[in-house]
């Protein structure tokens, strides 16, 4: 019994509890703001957004637990989205192009990880450079305006539609496929983070890298893997972006997404100092932003106030969290 209680305590610690309350309150506010907000269509819209943000949030959340950070997510999304179209236009089958886009994300993760571990560069700086480099590459790859799915050769159109159906908008299981994808990803990452040896090492490194080193943990390998997970999710995000939006404007596609993802992870209980966080919390944290967007739409709040609201919610979450930690 004691074990069960302490186990539950570990799982649903105060931080997760806080984000559960926040999501519940925001959802209640949304449902009471307008009858149309209660429609099935609206729930599907939220689910779609949650799926997309969630993939990015989970990736960066795992990285944040290890004590790292990635500012290049939005640019990788843009590069991935643009690359998908360019690959398909150049005769790559959409399935292969999709796989390559995701693998490109993994490759970027390897590069980031190597720079951080082997050259001991600061993660903030390395990925800040990535933010510029990958955005620039996305622009350079698309010289004639915005690449879009319309430019894909007609023999590939059915394959693209298949991808859209199975990865994003379709709902063979009754809910948008992107949500199914997210939950599957969360299940895999949840096992990895909370139950695997790698996950243990991740928390140990995030809390106290020195102690982990003295315990014989292969620090570099773990950190690199965390970067790979983060950037692979960003690559997948790029594929999802183009499937959802049909076109990708290289200058603006995915802009600020890294900050949304980090915000979601932090509200969900990840500490930027590392060593803290849960996959459940990240999922809930990722739900906050879509909820806020819908509240703005249905509550008749000026669109221009979106960022203000996001900032205030994050601030409120941080303050509540601080108070809870103190009382704890």
């Amino acid at each position: 019994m004691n074990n069960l209680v302490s186990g539950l305590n570990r799982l649903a610690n105060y931080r997760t509890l806080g984000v559960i309350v926040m999501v519940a309150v925001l959802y209640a506010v949304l449902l009471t703001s307008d009858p149309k907000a209660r429609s099935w269509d609206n729930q599907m819209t939220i689910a779609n957004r949650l799926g997309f943000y969630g993939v990015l949030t989970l990736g960066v959340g795992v990285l944040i637990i290890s004590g790292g950070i990635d500012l290049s997510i939005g640019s990788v999304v843009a590069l991935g989205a643009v690359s998908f179209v360019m690959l398909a236009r150049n005769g790559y089958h959409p399935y292969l192009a999709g796989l390559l886009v995701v693998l490109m994300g993994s490759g970027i993760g390897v590069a980031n990880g190597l720079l951080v571990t082997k050259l001991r560069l600061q993660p903030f700086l390395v990925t800040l450079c990535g933010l510029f480099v990958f955005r620039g590459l996305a622009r350079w790859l698309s010289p004639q305006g915005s690449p879009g799915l319309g430019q894909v050769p007609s023999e590939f159109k059915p394959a693209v539609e298949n991808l859209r159906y199975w990865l994003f908008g379709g709902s063979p299981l009754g809910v948008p496929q992107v949500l199914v994808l997210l939950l599957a990803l969360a299940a895999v990452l949840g096992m990895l983070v909370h139950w695997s040896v790698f996950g243990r090492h991740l928390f140990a490194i995030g809390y106290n890298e020195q102690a982990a080193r003295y315990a014989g943990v292969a620090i570099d390998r773990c950190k690199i893997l965390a970067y790979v997970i983060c950037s692979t999710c960003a690559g997948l995000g790029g594929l999802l972006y183009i499937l959802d939006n049909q076109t990708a404007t290289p200058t603006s596609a995915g802009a600020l997404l890294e900050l949304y993802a980090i915000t979601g992870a932090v509200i969900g209980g990840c500490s930027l100092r590392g060593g803290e966080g849960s996959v459940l919390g990240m999922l809930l944290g990722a739900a906050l932003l879509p909820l806020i967007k819908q509240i703005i739409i249905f509550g008749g709040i000026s669109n221009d106030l979106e960022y203000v609201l996001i900032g205030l919610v994050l601030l409120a979450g941080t303050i509540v969290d601080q108070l809870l930690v103190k009382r704890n």
Partner: protein
Amino acid sequence: MRLQAGEVLAVVGENGAGKSTLMKILGGIYTPDAGEILLDGRAVQLPNVTAAQRLGISLIHQELNLAENLSIAANIFLGRERSRFGPIGLLDNRTMNRETERLLSRVGLTLSPNTLVGRLKPGQKQLVEIARALSLDARILIMDEPTSSLSQSETDRLYEVVFDLKRAGVAVVYISHRLFEVERVADRAVVLRDGRNAGELARHEINHGVLVRLMVGRDLKQFYPRTHGTNSDAPIRLEVREIRYQDGPDEPMSFQLRAGEIVGMAGLVGAGRTELAEALFGIRRLTAGQVLVDGEAVAGNGKAWSPALAIAAGLVLIPEDRRLHGLVLQESVAFNLSLPNLSALALGGLVQQGKERHLASGLVERLRIRTPGLWQKVGLLSGGNQQKVVVGKWLAHTPRVLIFDEPTRGVDVGAKAEIYALMDQLAGQGSAVLMISSDLEEVLAMSDRVLVLHQGRLAGELPRARLTEEAVMHLATGGTAD
């Protein structure tokens, strides 16, 4: 204890005798529980550093407290910057630089006040610290191990400055381990032992032998178990062959540990014992030589070597700084105990909770770790129980070689006895134990033989039969082996 104007009073004592604590009380860092401090015949209170400085007492720490990224002048006036235009507070660099130049010439440094402190050699930094103390009009200057990081010529330069200050009427308290220095600079010496004044010597009475006898000389308590037998034919577990390591001494070092043996490693703070342990455990790079475990060359000659490989070879380290290197404080007892054993607990990459609980509860029981539960945050345990967790994580498999670095620092008496019993038991099971310790009492009581380090080099080896505190201190303070 008394101190007169214009004299150099040496304060000596073993590690942990209370020298630094006493000086921190005088410097206003700690407040005394009882007793009085009289300055010029009047009782004074020293609630904080500023109060002490206002009364003319300045403390120069063992670890220098300088901001490396700032200039000499900025460091000397840190927190007391001269400014112009009153409340606007623009820095008055001209005045500060002029003042700094004057102070630097007083301590014999010919450097521009704008030089970055990070560029200075250790000796020069020490002199900058003294200049800062002078800028506070210090009448009493307390120097804690001022020469620990200085070369011989820098040390000589420091002596000259000390003699100058003395002539100017400044009272200097000179704390040192190095007894030869005490003989040279001190007008008087006070010996501390276990926080008490163990004796005072006038200038003509100060010599190496007398100091050592006063520093030592007490009975060993009875909580050191010795049940493991000693066998000089036992197989060699660890052989260190002519190794040199990163930032270590130029001279290579060699020694051996046999199965079932507890070998003490003594030396003063800064003698390079922790550095050696780090090199053996793969934290510090080996630059020459070889390390052999059970006759097999595991490290050296360009072979990859890391903590993970050391652990795989059966060589483990219980580090000196358990909060920084030994534990993930915010995590649980079970988390910490299983951290190096995870691969044995995992199936297909996933940690098996049942196995983990079994391992952790077994270790908690075996080591009698007092904790409310396996999921208790390890940072909330007492020092002794934390240390047992640090040791315990290596005991899932019996290691071949254990290096304990200061195993009982900050550990209560009860847990100390248990840790000694554990070492004895491990030796009985055939492990080789290297015990690095500044606690001479435990070194004498626990060791089958003792290696003494002085300034990074192996100064000598003492078998149990010839093991006395005097002999260890003699070697550790730079005396020669006979």
